[in-house]
C-alpha cells in the first residue's frame, strides 16, 4: 500500500489545529507561526497531489479505501478527480494568506475591553476548517463527505461568532449581539440544509445499499441498481438543498451577508472563498454524479434560480452601504454564475464553473482582504466613511482596484476566463438565460466602481488623511494573489488541463453532449 | 391449607381476615395520603404495612411477612420517623394546592388508572390458583434461599452492591465537609466583640412567669415577643409559639375575676387582641 497522500493532506492541518490550540497562552505568537507553518506544509502536500495527479489517467486517483462502519457499508474512501485537485490546490493556497492576513485579528484587545480573544483558537479553528474542507473535496464516499460537510459548521460558527472587527460603530455590546445573530443564522441555515441532506443520505443508503460513489456508479452502469424516477428526484432535491444553502443560491442566501459582514475579513474570505465552494463542488460531484436524471429534470428551475442570484445579488450589491456586505452580495451573484455553469450541462459551462470556483476564491480573497486592511485602519465598514484613500495610500488603493477589477471580470484577469466560459456554455443551450446573465457584468462594473469611487477617490477625508499604506505583511498577502489573478487570466491552461477530463466524465454522467454549432450542424 | 393443585377459593377464615384487614389497609393508605402531619402519615403507613405483612403470611410468604414487619415496619418506617423528626415534626403540611389543575389531574389520573388496573385484573381469567403448598414443602425460607442463591444469584449480588452504594451515597449526601477549621470559643467571642452586635449572650427563651419551653419567645418589656431568644432552627421552621397574647389575656382574666369579686364594673369587656390578629 502506498503512502496515503490524501489523508495526509487533510490530517496535517487537523493535527496542526490541535497543536496550535495546545500552545500556551503566553506564547501566542508561536501559535501564529505554527499555524502558518502547518498551512504551508499543507500547501506543499497539495502541490505533491497536484504533481502526482495525472489528468489523462483514471477518473479518481490517489484513491484510498478502508472499511469503516461495516454494518452500514460505510467506507473511508478518498480519491480526487481534476475538479477536486483544482479546489484542493485553491484551498491550500488561500489558507496561508488567510492566516497571514489575520495575523493580528485575534490579538487580545487593548486593555479595558472585557472581551477575551484566544489567539490560538482563531488559528486552530482556521486549520480545522481547512482540514474538513480538504477531506470534503477528497471524499468519494457520501457518508464521509456528509460528516465533514456538517462538521465544518462547528469551527465556522466559532470563527464567525467569536472574532469580529476590532472597531465597531455601535460599540462592543451591539457588535457582539450582531455577531452572535450572524453566527446563529449561519449555523441554522446550514444545519437545516444538512439535516435535509442527511435524510437524503439515509434514503440513498436504503436505495443503493452503500455510500460509495464508485460502487453506486458501477451498479448503475451494470443495471443492478435501478432508482425509480420519483425516488431519484426526491434524493436529488435533498442533496441539492443542502448545497444550495451552502453555495448560497437565491433565496437561501441571506445568511451570507450577515456572516461576512460580522466576521473579520480573513474569516469572510474563508467562508466565501473556501467553505462555500464545497457546496458548488458537491453539486458537480454528488448531484450530477449520483442523480443524473433528476439533475436534468431540475435544470430549468435551477438555472432560473441561478439567474435570479446573479442579477439580484448584483443589484443588492449596488444598494449596499457596508463594504463587506457589498462583497457578500457580489459573491452571491458570482455563485449564481457558478451554479449556472454547472447546470448548463455543457463542457464550457462546467469547465467554466470549476475555473470560476478557483478564480472567485482568489479574486474575492484579494478584494476582501484589502477591504479588511482598509477597515482595520479606519475602524468602520461604511462606505460613506471613506474618501480619497487613493491619495494617502496608493498601494492599498491600487490593490483594491485590481481586486475590484477581478470581481467585475476584467479580461486579462482570471475571473474573466471563467465567467465567459460559463456564459458561453449557458448561451449555447439557453440563449435567453445567457443574455440576461450578461447583464450581470454591467451591474458588476457598477457596484465595483461605485465602491472604488466612493472610498478611494475624491477629496481626502480628514479621518483617513493619516492612514498608512500597506505594510510588508499585507503586501505579502496581496501581491501573490494578484500575480495569480493575472497569471491565470493570461494562461489558465494548467487549470483547464486538469479540469477538462473531469468535466468530460461529469458530462457523461449526465449523458449530455454539447450542442453542435449551427454551421456544422447544417452540413 | 391443603396441598391440592387447583383451588378456587380460600378458607372462610382467610376471607374474613381479608375483608376486615383489607378495609384497615385501605383506610391506612388513605390516611397516609390525607393526614396533614407527616407523623400521622407515617403511623398510618406503618399500620398498612403491618396489615400487608399479615397478608403475606396468609399467602404463604412466611419469610417475607416477617421481613416486612422487622425490616420494613421496624427499620424503614423508623428511619422515616427519624427524618420527620429531623425535618420538623410539627410542620403541618398545608393541603392547599398551589399548582393549577394539579389536584384535578391527579385525581383523574388516579381514578382512571385504578379503574383500568382493576378492569385489567378483572379481565384476566384468574379463576384457579396453585397455592404455595408445593413450593413451601421444604420450608418457605429454604425454598427462597434455594432460588436466591441459584437462579437469582447475580441479582442478589447486585443488590448487595446496590445497598453499599446507597449507604455510601447517603453518607456523601448528608455529610458536610468542613472546609475550614472549626472556630474556637475564644475566636467566636472575639468575633462577637468585634461585631459589637450581641456582646452579651443571647437572651433566654421562655416567659418565666408561665412558660419556660424553648419554643416560646421571651417577651420584651412592652410585651412583644423577641425572636432572638429562640434557637435558630426553630425560628427557621417557624415553630415559635407566641404566648404574648395569652399571657396578657390571662392577666386580664385575673383582673376580671378580681373585679368580679370586688364587684367593680369591668373596664374593658373584650379580650385583648394583637393588632394584626384583630385586623384579620
Amino acid at each position, binding site marked *: 500500500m502506498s503512502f496515503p497522500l490524501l489523508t495526509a493532506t487533510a490530517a496535517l492541518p487537523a493535527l496542526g489545529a490541535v497543536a496550535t490550540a495546545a500552545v500556551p497562552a503566553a506564547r501566542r505568537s508561536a501559535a501564529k507561526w505554527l499555524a502558518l507553518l502547518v498551512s504551508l506544509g499543507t500547501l506543499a502536500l497539495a502541490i505533491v497531489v497536484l504533481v502526482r495527479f495525472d489528468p489523462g489517467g483514471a477518473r479518481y486517483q490517489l484513491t484510498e479505501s478502508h472499511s469503516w462502519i461495516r454494518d452500514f457499508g460505510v467506507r473511508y474512501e478518498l480519491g480526487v478527480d481534476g475538479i477536486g485537485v483544482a479546489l484542493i490546490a485553491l484551498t491550500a493556497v488561500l489558507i496561508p494568506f488567510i492566516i497571514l492576513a489575520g495575523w493580528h485579528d485575534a490579538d487580545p484587545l487593548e486593555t479595558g475591553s472585557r472581551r477575551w480573544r484566544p489567539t490560538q483558537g482563531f488559528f486552530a479553528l482556521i486549520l480545522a476548517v481547512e482540514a474538513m474542507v480538504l477531506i470534503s473535496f477528497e471524499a468519494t464516499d457520501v457518508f464521509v463527505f456528509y460528516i465533514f460537510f456538517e462538521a465544518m459548521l462547528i469551527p465556522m460558527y466559532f470563527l464567525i461568532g467569536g472574532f469580529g472587527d476590532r472597531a465597531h460603530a455601535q460599540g462592543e455590546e451591539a457588535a457582539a449581539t450582531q455577531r452572535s445573530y450572524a453566527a446563529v443564522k449561519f449555523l441554522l441555515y446550514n444545519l437545516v440544509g444538512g439535516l435535509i441532506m442527511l435524510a437524503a443520505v439515509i434514503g440513498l443508503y436504503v436505495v443503493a445499499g452503500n455510500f460509495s460513489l464508485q460502487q453506486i456508479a458501477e451498479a448503475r452502469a451494470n443495471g443492478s441498481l435501478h432508482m425509480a424516477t420519483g425516488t431519484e428526484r426526491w434524493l436529488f432535491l435533498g442533496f441539492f438543498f443542502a448545497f444550495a444553502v451552502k453555495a448560497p443560491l437565491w*433565496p437561501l442566501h441571506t445568511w451570507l451577508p450577515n456572516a461576512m459582514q460580522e466576521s473579520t475579513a480573513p474569516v469572510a474570505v474563508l467562508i466565501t472563498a473556501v467553505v462555500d465552494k464545497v457546496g458548488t463542488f458537491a453539486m458537480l460531484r454528488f448531484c450530477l454524479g449520483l442523480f443524473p436524471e433528476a439533475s436534468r429534470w431540475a435544470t430549468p428551475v435551477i438555472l432560473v434560480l441561478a439567474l435570479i442570484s446573479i442579477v439580484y445579488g448584483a443589484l443588492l450589491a449596488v444598494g449596499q452601504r457596508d463594504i463587506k456586505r457589498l462583497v457578500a452580495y457580489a459573491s452571491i451573484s458570482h455563485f449564481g454564475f457558478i451554479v449556472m455553469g454547472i447546470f448548463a450541462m455543457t463542457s464550457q459551462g462546467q469547465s467554466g464553473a470549476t475555473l470560476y470556483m478557483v478564480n472567485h476564491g482568489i479574486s474575492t480573497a484579494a478584494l476582501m482582504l484589502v477591504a479588511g486592511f482598509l477597515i482595520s485602519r479606519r475602524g468602520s465598514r461604511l462606505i460613506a466613511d471613506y474618501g480619497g484613500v487613493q491619495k494617502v495610500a496608493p498601494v492599498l488603493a491600487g490593490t483594491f482596484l485590481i481586486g475590484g477589477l477581478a470581481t467585475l471580470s476584467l479580461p486579462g484577469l482570471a475571473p474573466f476566463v471563467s465567467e465567459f466560459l460559463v456564459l458561453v456554455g449557458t448561451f449555447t443551450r439557453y440563449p435567453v438565460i445567457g443574455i440576461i446573465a450578461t447583464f450581470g457584468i454591467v451591474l458588476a462594473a457598477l457596484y465595483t*466602481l461605485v465602491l472604488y*469611487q466612493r472610498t478611494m477617490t475624491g477629496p481626502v477625508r480628514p479621518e483617513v488623511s493619516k492612514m498608512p499604506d500597506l505594510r510588508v505583511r499585507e503586501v505579502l498577502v496581496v501581491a501573490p494573489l494578484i500575480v495569480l489573478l493575472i497569471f491565470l487570466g493570461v494562461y489558465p491552461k494548467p487549470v483547464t488541463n486538469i479540469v*477538462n477530463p473531469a468535466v468530460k466524465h461529469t458530462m457523461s454522467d449526465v449523458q449530455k453532449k454539447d450542442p453542435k454549432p449551427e454551421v456544422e450542424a447544417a*452540413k | 391449607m391443603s396441598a391440592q393443585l387447583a383451588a378456587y377459593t380460600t378458607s372462610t377464615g382467610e376471607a374474613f381476615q381479608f375483608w376486615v384487614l383489607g378495609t384497615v389497609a385501605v383506610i391506612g393508605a388513605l390516611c397516609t395520603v390525607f393526614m396533614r402531619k407527616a407523623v400521622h402519615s407515617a403511623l398510618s403507613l406503618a399500620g398498612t404495612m403491618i396489615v400487608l405483612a399479615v397478608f403475606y403470611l396468609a399467602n404463604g410468604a412466611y419469610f417475607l411477612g416477617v421481613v416486612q414487619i422487622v425490616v420494613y415496619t421496624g427499620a424503614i418506617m423508623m428511619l422515616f420517623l427519624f427524618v420527620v423528626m429531623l425535618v420538623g415534626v410539627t410542620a403541618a403540611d398545608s393541603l392547599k394546592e398551589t399548582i393549577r389543575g394539579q389536584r384535578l389531574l391527579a385525581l383523574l389520573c388516579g381514578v382512571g388508572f385504578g379503574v383500568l388496573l382493576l*378492569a385489567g385484573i378483572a379481565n384476566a381469567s384468574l379463576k384457579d390458583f396453585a397455592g404455595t403448598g408445593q413450593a413451601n414443602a421444604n420450608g418457605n425460607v429454604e425454598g427462597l434461599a434455594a432460588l436466591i442463591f441459584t437462579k437469582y444469584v447475580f441479582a442478589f449480588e447486585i443488590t448487595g452492591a446496590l445497598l453499599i452504594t446507597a449507604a455510601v451515597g447517603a453518607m456523601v449526601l448528608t455529610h458536610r465537609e468542613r472546609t475550614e477549621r472549626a472556630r474556637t470559643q475564644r475566636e467566636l467571642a472575639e468575633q462577637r466583640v468585634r461585631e459589637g452586635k450581641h456582646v452579651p449572650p443571647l437572651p433566654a427563651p421562655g416567659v418565666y412567669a408561665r412558660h419556660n419551653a424553648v419554643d416560646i419567645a421571651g417577651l420584651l418589656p412592652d410585651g412583644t415577643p423577641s425572636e432572638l431568644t429562640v434557637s435558630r432552627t426553630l425560628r427557621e421552621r417557624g415553630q415559635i409559639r407566641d404566648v404574648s397574647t395569652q399571657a396578657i389575656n390571662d392577666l386580664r382574666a385575673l383582673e376580671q375575676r378580681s373585679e368580679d369579686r370586688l364587684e367593680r364594673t369591668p373596664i374593658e369587656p373584650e379580650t385583648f387582641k394583637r393588632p394584626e390578629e384583630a385586623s384579620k
Partner: protein
Amino acid sequence: MEKLIALLIAAPLLGAVVLLVGGRRLDRVGHWVGTLLSTASFVVGVFLFADLLGRNAEHRTLIQHLWTWIPVEGFQADVTFRLDQLSMTFVLLITGVGSLIHLYSVGYMEHDERRRRFFGYLNLFLAAMLLLVLADNYLLLYVGWEGVGLASYLLIGFWQHKPSAATAAKKAFLVNRVGDMGLSIAIMLMFTTFGSFAFGPVFGHVDGATEGKLTAIGLLLLLAACGKSAQVPLQSWLGDAMEGPTPVSALIHAATMVTAGVYLIVRSAAVFNAAPDAQLVVTVVGTVTLLFGAIVGCAKDDIKKALAGSTMSQIGYMVLAAGLGPIGYVFAIMHLVTHGFFKAGLFLGAGSVMHGMNDEVDMRKFGGLRKYMPVTFITFGLGYLAIIGFPGLSGFFSKDKIIEAAFAKGGTEGWILGGAALVGAAITAFYMTRVMLMTFFGEKRWQPDENGAEPHPHESPKVMTIPMIVLAVGSVFGGAFFSIGDRFLKWLEPVTGHSEGHSPVSAGEITIATMACLVIGVGIAWAQYGRRPVPAVAPRGSLLTRAARRDLLQDDFNHVVLVRGGEHLTRSLVYVDHTLVDGVVNGTAAGFGGLSGRLRRLQNGFARSYAVSMFGGAALLVAATLLMRAV
C-alpha cells in the same frame, strides 16, 4: 518577421508594468522610459510596415501564434496576432500618434507629482489598443477592448481627487460596459453559430449562417461600437471624459480608442456585408451621431467639450461610411487616420492653450491668443482647416469621399444620408470656426482667477510644440498623400474589399456642394463671433442651444430613467431582501420561538407536574394494552 508582432505589444506593456510596479524610484526617469518604449513600438511597427510593403498584396497578412489561451472541450481561444494592412494602419497610427503624445505629455505633465503613473497608464493603453487591433479572434480583441476601457477609466479619472473626474471615469467605464455586453453576446452568438470566434473561421463560414443570425451579430457588434466610439445612444460619456488630462483626450478620446468601433465594424466587414439590415442601422446610427455631435459642439463653451462633440460627429462620419459597405470601408479608415492627425493636433493645441492659461477651458475667457502663442495658433489653425475640409488639406479628401459614398448608396436612403452628411459638414465649419474665433481672435477676455493670479499666456515648451507641428504636417498633407493615386485604397482593398458605387451626383457637384456648405458655416460663425465681441458670460440662447449645452438632454434622460430608476430598484430590493426573503426565514424562526415559549410553560419545574404527566402516560399505556387485548 511574424515574431516581431508580439514585440509591438510587449514594449508598452513592459513599460506599464515597470512604471506601475516600480514605485517612486522611477519618478525621475519614468516619463522617458514610457516615451522610449512607446517609440520602440513605433519603430517595430515601421519595420513591419516596410516588410509588408515588400510583399505582394496577397501575402501581406502575418499571423503569430503565441499560446493556446483557453482550451476547453469544443472551445478554443488562442493568443494569436494577425497583422494585415488594416491592423498595420492602426498600429502606425496608434504608435505614431501615441509616441508624439507621450512626448507632449512629458512637458504637459511636468508639474504633476504622479507623472510616472500617468506614463504607466499611457503605456498600458497603448498595449491594450495594439492588442485590440492585432488580435486574431474576437475574444482576444475583447481583451484589448476592455483593456483600453480600463486605461481610459484610469486616465479620465487620473486626477482622482476631483469628484467630477472620478464620476466621469466611472461613467465612461459603465457606458462602455453596456457596449461590451453587446460584444460578448456577439462572441457567444458567433460561437454557437460557427463554433469559433476567430476571424478566419467566422468570415469563412458567413454564407453558412442564416441572415437573421448575422443581423443579430451585426447589431450586437454595432452596440459594442456605439459604446466605444460614443455613438448614439451610448454617446453620453465622451463629453465627461474630457475631465482627463488633455493628452489623454487627444490620444484616447480623439485619435485612437474612440475609433475602435469603426475598426470593429470594418474588421467584421464580412458579417456586415451579409446583413444589409444591420448595415442600414449602422448608417442610421452614424448619421444621427454626426448631426448630434455637431450640434452639441456648436453650443459648448468648454474648448475640450466642443472638440469632443466634434470628435463624436467625425466618428459619426466614419461609422456612416463603414455602414455603407464596401463602398465606404476604405474611406472610413482613411478619415479615421486623417482625423487622428488633425483631431489629435487640435486637442494638443487646446492643451497648449490651457497650459498657458492656468488650465482654463472656457473659451469665453480666451480671445486674442494668436499673438501670445503663435506656434499653437498656426498648428491649431492648420488642424482647423483640415477638419472643416478646406480644399487640399486632409479632411477635404477623406470627408468628401464619405459624402460621395453616402450619395452613392442610391435611392432615397442615399439622398437622406448624403444630405445629412452635407449638413454635418456645414455645421462642422460653423462650430470649428467658432472655436477658432473665440480662442485666437478678438480681444483678450481673461480675468484673474479667484486667487487673484492673472494668467500670463505663453507659448509652450519645445517638447510640446514639436508633436503639434508634426501632427499639423500630417493634417495638411495626409489626405493628399493617401488620395493621390488611390494609395490608401489600394493598400487596404485586399482586406476590406472595395466597390465603386454609382452616385446620382457627380464628384464635382459634391465638391461644389461641400464648398458651399463650408462657406455658409464659416460665414455664419464669422457673423456671430468674428464681427461682434464675444460676451464673457454665455447668453441664455434658444431652446436648441440650451438643450445642446446640456448635451441634448442625454444626461437628464439617463439620470431620470437609469440612475433614479436604478436607485429606486436597488433600494426597494434591499428592502425586499431584508423584509421578505429574510423575513420568511426569521418569521419561521419566530414562529418556532413562540411555539416553544408556549410549550415551555409545561416545563414549570415542579416535579409533581412531571409526575402527573408520567402517570397519565402510564394510564394511557395500560389503556392501550387493554384495548389491544380487547380487539
